[in-house]
């Protein structure tokens, strides 16, 4: 990645930042539009960090902090796994591991009308998309994509759900495919749904497979690519 800083503090791109670090001095960069992503805030003329993590930069002008937490902060257009906690007249109340419960409007399904409102039991696991996430308001969810189609959103039947950190969820969803999933996919066949709120759901024909996949994913958080492949081979040897 190209380093655009020429002033004396060394560029912080790709290095670990703690809250309070000044990462950019705007007085030395005039006439540029900079886009700030999560974890950064503007304080008059300097950009300082609000979260601990790694500073990332993407051309031409996007800066953000990558970090991994157990808590989830809802963001628009995130895909999450939610659990139904209550149902009201107009919406379902869903727990998405955020600061507040989220609302899923009763009509937010493909072909949803007042006559065919789905009935979800308490505790149903749903794959959802965040539509509105403003500070101070309960987030709003939907079971359709932006164009109104169902697109795999909705209830997840059977399977096993476990919780991870948000950083691991993002790694599992990155492309090219995460090494753990690729190594598991070569030998086992399973279905997986990853929520950016730190929840992962796995389903397979036999319970042994589900347990192996879940354990492999949970172990892979701090391992490098090679270590992940070795760990998966080790786990698969024990069941075959």
């Amino acid at each position, binding site marked *: 990645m190209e380093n655009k800083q020429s002033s004396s503090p060394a560029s912080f791109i790709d290095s670990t930042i703690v809250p309070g670090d000044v990462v950019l001095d705007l007085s030395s960069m005039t006439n540029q539009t900079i886009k700030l992503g999560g974890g950064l805030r503007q304080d008059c003329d300097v950009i300082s960090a609000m979260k601990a993590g790694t500073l990332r930069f993407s051309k031409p002008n996007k800066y953000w902090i990558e970090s991994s937490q157990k808590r989830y902060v809802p963001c628009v257009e995130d895909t999450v796994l939610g659990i139904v906690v209550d149902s009201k007249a107009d919406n379902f109340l869903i727990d998405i591991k955020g600061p507040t419960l989220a609302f899923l409007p009763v009509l937010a399904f493909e072909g949803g009308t007042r006559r065919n409102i789905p009935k979800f039991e308490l505790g149903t696991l749903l794959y959802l998309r965040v539509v509105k996430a403003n*500070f101070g*308001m309960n987030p709003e969810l939907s079971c359709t994509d932006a164009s109104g189609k169902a697109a795999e959103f909705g209830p997840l039947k059977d399977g096993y759900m476990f919780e991870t950190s948000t950083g691991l969820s993002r790694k599992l969803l990155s492309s090219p495919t995460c090494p753990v999933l690729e190594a598991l996919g070569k030998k086992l066949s399973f279905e997986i749904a990853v929520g950016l709120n730190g929840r992962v759901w796995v389903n397979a024909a036999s319970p042994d497979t589900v347990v192996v996949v879940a354990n492999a994913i949970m172990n892979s958080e701090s391992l490098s690519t090679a270590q992940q492949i070795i760990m998966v081979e080790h786990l698969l040897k024990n069941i075959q």
Partner: protein
Amino acid sequence: MEKSGENEMVTPGDVLGRATDLKPGKGAYVASHNNTIYASLTGLRRIQLPPPDSPDQRPIVEVTGHKAHGPVPEPGSVVIARVTKVMARTASADIMCVGPKSVREKFTGIIRQQDVRATEIDKVDMHLSFHPGDIVRAVVLSLGDARAYYLSTAKNELGVVSAESSAGATMVPISWTEMQCPLTGQIEQRKVAKVVS
């Protein structure tokens, strides 16, 4: 009767003093048959010293300080409220002043999505109109339900009067939908009141 050092709570009918020593003020009256001053409201008994240039030098006794004496929102009155919660189709606000007077007890108001502005009322996004903590000028539509008055900001001179940006500075209005933070230059959307100077 001697003047008591502390204010005591009185109820209607309590004796406040003699008309020869004191003059009745707010919430007190003289019963002419025995020249005694009685309280007509509930509250704290207060004594006010008379202005030095008046011919009658008796101190004035009055009954004030109870929250029932404060102003109460009526339908049609303009109120100043602070937004407490913004939800998908309503915003809750705490009414702080009715007209020019501040209220003595807490009144809650609700601004519904259809009462935020006069045009395109079904396309209103509550989050682009109010944020928690904003001070708004609104008019009382009705007494509403048991929980809250119904308020409306559907006029040019009604809406957000003062708001804080996410950086913590008081924002400057730039149009009827936008306010700008003076520290960071960021523009935030609100339903801004047109202040006629």
